[in-house]
């Protein structure tokens, strides 16, 4: 089997399992809703202020929702000793990683798609800049969080206190990507500055860390 077909097969299996149990999805959805509501209580800005701070609020909310999703990335595999089977099989480790990353990407994107209208409503948001750039920022930003998140989740499962370890490892390394996402969103909403540099930075970040994850995942899977 090629990497592509193996990735697709694993991804479809994961999605099907998730859809059947809907456990993780439901809890994540509710968590996402809670985050939006609580943030909305904490800040009550004017329309002008909203546009400036919305970028930060939205991405921090997405980040927390993403961490909840990422933490259960490998949970099923651990429960059923799938990782040991993977280690022994000749299947390329990258297929497993990509499948997990894509699966997480889909989950987090679904969460974002559900949280965004709520944010728009609660903060009366209206973009003054080029709106078409927002989905680009969303896709690039989400992949940035998810690719490193999936990799660090794989590191974390081998530690004590694994749920805490994931954000602890992810947040520092994600800082440039977070800054880019927040600034880009702010720039697009306020229409005052250009988001182009941030979009390029996000793209560069994604390229660097996707390659790094693909190169190093095999070693992490086979560690010990």
């Amino acid at each position, binding site marked *: 089997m090629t990497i592509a077909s193996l990735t697709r097969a694993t991804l479809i299996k994961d999605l099907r399992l998730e859809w059947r149990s809907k456990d993780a999805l439901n809890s994540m959805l509710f968590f996402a809703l809670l985050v939006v509501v609580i943030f909305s209580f904490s800040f009550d800005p004017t329309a002008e202020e909203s546009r400036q701070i919305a970028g930060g609020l939205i991405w921090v909310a997405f980040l927390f929702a993403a961490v909840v999703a990422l933490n259960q990335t490998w949970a099923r595999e651990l429960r059923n000793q799938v990782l040991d089977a993977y280690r022994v099989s000749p299947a390329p480790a990258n297929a497993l990683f990509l499948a997990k990353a894509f699966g997480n990407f889909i989950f987090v994107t679904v969460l974002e798609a559900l949280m965004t209208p709520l944010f728009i409503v609660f903060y009366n948001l209206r973009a003054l800049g080029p709106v078409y750039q927002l989905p680009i920022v969303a896709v690039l930003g989400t992949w940035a969080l998810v690719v*490193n998140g999936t*990799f660090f989740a794989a590191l974390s499962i081998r*530690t*004590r206190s694994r749920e805490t*370890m994931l954000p602890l490892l992810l947040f520092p390394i994600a800082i440039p*990507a977070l800054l*880019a996402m927040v600034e880009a969103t702010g720039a697009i909403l306020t229409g005052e*500055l250009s988001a182009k540099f941030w979009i390029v930075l996000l793209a560069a970040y994604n390229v660097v860390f996707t390659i790094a994850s693909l190169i190093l995942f095999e070693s992490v899977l086979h560690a*010990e």
Partner: protein
Amino acid sequence: MKRAFPILAVLTAALLSFALYEALVVAPTDQLQGDVYRIIYYHVPSAWTMFIFFLVNFVASVVYLIRRNLKADAVAVAAAEVGIVFCTVVLVTGPLWARPVWGIWWTWDVRLTSTLVLWLIYVSYLILRRFSSGGQMPVLAAALAVFGALDMPLVYFSIWFFRTQHPQPVVGGGGSTDPRMLHIWLINWAAFLCFGLLVFWSRYRLEVLRREVEEIQAMESLREA
């Protein structure tokens, strides 16, 4: 190296004292900032030394990933710890300089903020090492170190661009560049580098010893079982 250590330690202490004297007494007083600016004679050399040790950690981590040589892993952890110590010094002396000169403790200045992120990344590295067990820990740690190193240029650029869009005072910039200052910078750097190397070497030896003890303890418990 072991026998040379005490002599080197004494020499380093002498060099550090000389460097301190140069920084406090010989260096000319800055017209704009007065005497406070002398903090940079500690702040900047510490930053340069920090970078060197983090670079050593990166190289050692890559060597470990390629060769699985445990000595490389010992070098990596020693370099990371010493790097963090110098990093902490940079983060503490920076605001102590910024406050009297610019009136604020912290600005999201490129270098200081990048240093903060570096500190966060390496502390998370040490925590990962502490919380993971046994044979797999070096691989995980080395992977994180590589990610951290790859991240740094991106961190720097993102903050740099953020700053150009939202400008604020720069810590560590400006001020006259008297040629005598460079000379004193270099002396302090040499002194701190020697000091750092001695500390690093001590930490490395400690790590090697710790592993030996661990191995023996493991064998003992096997024998009892």
